[in-house]
């Protein structure tokens, strides 16, 4: 499957974009140690012409923010955090969801009506506001004293675990339904008749059908997690905590993580005069999401073409049959 994906242009584009972004981000911190160039003023011919924020034309490539920091450098530094956090959250979410989904699909699939009914309510709960309501007390400092209840590491771990946890039920239901559906097919009955136990059924019969669809769920979850992080950023809940400056008027992100940059743009960006403050982080984020969607689309297409890995094995066996008929046997009644 991976070999076939690598021949797909859209998958390759998305993959190269994400990998390139990650590698560039890591190299930048290794070589330049996350240095952010500052341009507090536009200087021409030794004279200060204009204070920050500077537009992309005045301070290439992407302009600067209110404090004169280069947006491009901040976005590049933030890339590895954002993608890394999204990967970690997806990993935690899917490992728990796979385990629960496996139990549900293999052993509790009988009760699917009740379980689906219980989780049906999740379809009417906006995830963003749910995450906000749970996370706000943890991530925001006390308004009066401006002191955090918890250390930065604690806040980061809490945010990762909570965002991972609120997606587990729906993901587990999806995975469980996938397993349960495959389990009701005819060849499973044959395997049972031949004496396979449930672990053997899962590993030998269900897994080959399950993995391709599971890879779809993985990318979908990754996209959802990234969008949720950006939404939280807009609601001024930044990863690692929100710093309030002054009397709660100005806020500022602890890390250069993208959701923080997006949220900041929404907080202090002047749409009319400084559009790049909006567009630099939002477009970078959009491109990353598009890259994942491109990959997703080609995974779907490859799956639709030949039904995933299972049929490939069959094809290989067919091609292993010798084609040189005449030398191997003769027709009896010719």
């Amino acid at each position, binding site marked *: 499957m991976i070999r076939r994906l690598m021949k797909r242009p859209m998958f390759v584009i998305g993959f190269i974009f994400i990998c390139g972004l990650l590698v560039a981000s890591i190299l930048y911190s290794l070589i330049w140690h996350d240095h952010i160039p500052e341009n507090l003023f536009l200087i021409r011919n030794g004279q200060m012409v204009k204070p920050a924020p500077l537009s992309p034309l005045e301070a290439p490539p992407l302009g600067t923010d209110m404090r004169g920091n280069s947006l491009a450098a901040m976005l590049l530094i933030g890339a590895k955090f954002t993608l890394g956090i999204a990967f970690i959250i997806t990993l935690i979410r899917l490992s728990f969801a796979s385990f629960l989904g496996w139990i549900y699909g293999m052993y509790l699939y009988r009760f699917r009506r009740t379980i689906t009914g219980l989780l*049906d*309510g999740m379809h009417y*709960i*906006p995830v963003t*506001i749910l995450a906000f309501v749970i996370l706000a007390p943890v991530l925001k400092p006390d308004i009066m004293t401006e002191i955090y209840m918890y250390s930065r590491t604690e806040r980061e771990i809490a945010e990762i675990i909570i965002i991972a946890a609120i997606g587990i039920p729906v993901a587990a239901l999806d995975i469980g339904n996938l397993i349960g559906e495959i389990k009701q097919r005819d060849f499973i009955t044959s395997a049972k008749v031949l004496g396979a136990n449930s672990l053997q059924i899962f590993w030998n019969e269900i897994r080959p059908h399950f993995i391709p669809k599971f890879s779809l769920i993985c990318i979908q979850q990754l996209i959802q997690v990234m969008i949720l992080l*950006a939404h939280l950023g807009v609601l001024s809940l930044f990863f690692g905590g929100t710093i309030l400056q002054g009397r709660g008027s100005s806020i500022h992100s602890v890390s250069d993580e993208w959701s923080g940059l997006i949220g900041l743009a929404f907080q202090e960006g002047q749409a009319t005069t400084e559009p790049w403050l909006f567009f630099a982080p939002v477009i970078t984020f959009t491109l990353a*999401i598009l890259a994942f969607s491109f990959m997703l689309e080609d995974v779907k297409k490859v799956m639709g073409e030949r039904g995933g890995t299972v049929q490939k094995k069959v094809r290989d066996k067919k091609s292993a049959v010798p084609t040189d008929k005449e030398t191997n046997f003769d027709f009896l009644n010719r």
Partner: protein
Amino acid sequence: MVIKQSVRLIATLIGILFVGCLPALFRGLNLSFSNYFGQMGDVLVQVLHPGQIGFQYEGRMYPLFPGILNPYFYSMKIFFAALIFSFLLALAGTYITFFLPQWLRKTVLFLAFIGESLPDIFIMVVFQMIIILIYQKTGLLLLNTSEGFNQQVFFLPVLCLSILPACFFYRMMMVAVGEQMDMDYITVAKSKGLGGCQLLFKHILRNIAVPVLSYSKTVVWMLLSNLVILEFVFGMQGLMTFIYNNPTPLVFTVSLFLIFIPFYFLYTFFSILIRKLTGRRVVI
């Protein structure tokens, strides 16, 4: 049938109650199950006496009903308008696409794919920017980008909210209609001389209703999150802003119940309608 439906409804309501009280589970970073279940019982009692619930606004207590109703109806108005508008847009798009030549059809589908993948934040930012640009160039303020003192903006948020689901519905319907087009009954209908319009709206639409409705659940789920950001960006005084300002388990749970109710009736109505129209029993 009725018993099964009511068991399902109660299960769903309990599920919502469990999620709605989740904020009480976290006392800072510690899990407190006693607090969680205590809060759940508390909310249950209070929901049964809705007249006595209060919420804080600028340090003073106000009754939740009717305080929450105005933002609620506003949000739902925008939400359903966007949902219906996007559906009609997708339907019209599907109809038009079948008259397009093959190469253009592929391009349109690719554009819809790109549109479907865009994050909502991007669309909202672009929208606001376009309105501002038009205002700067022509002095014509098409629509208020942000809510004024006493007026509720309607058309721009609806337009903004309906772009994503329109792409979702469109792509989904193209696949579903494409499947139906290969079936025998279409050939029969065509040979009898039925036009494309009659074919699509009378026969195909009826057959793709079930997959479209079950897909619409995913769209609704995604759209609710978009609504949160939309209300925040446009500064609308809707239900999501109300929750944002009062993030307590009680207000949150009541809001979730309020959001759930219209959808429950809508989906029940549609599954009855489908049973009447096609004779198929479906639970959506």
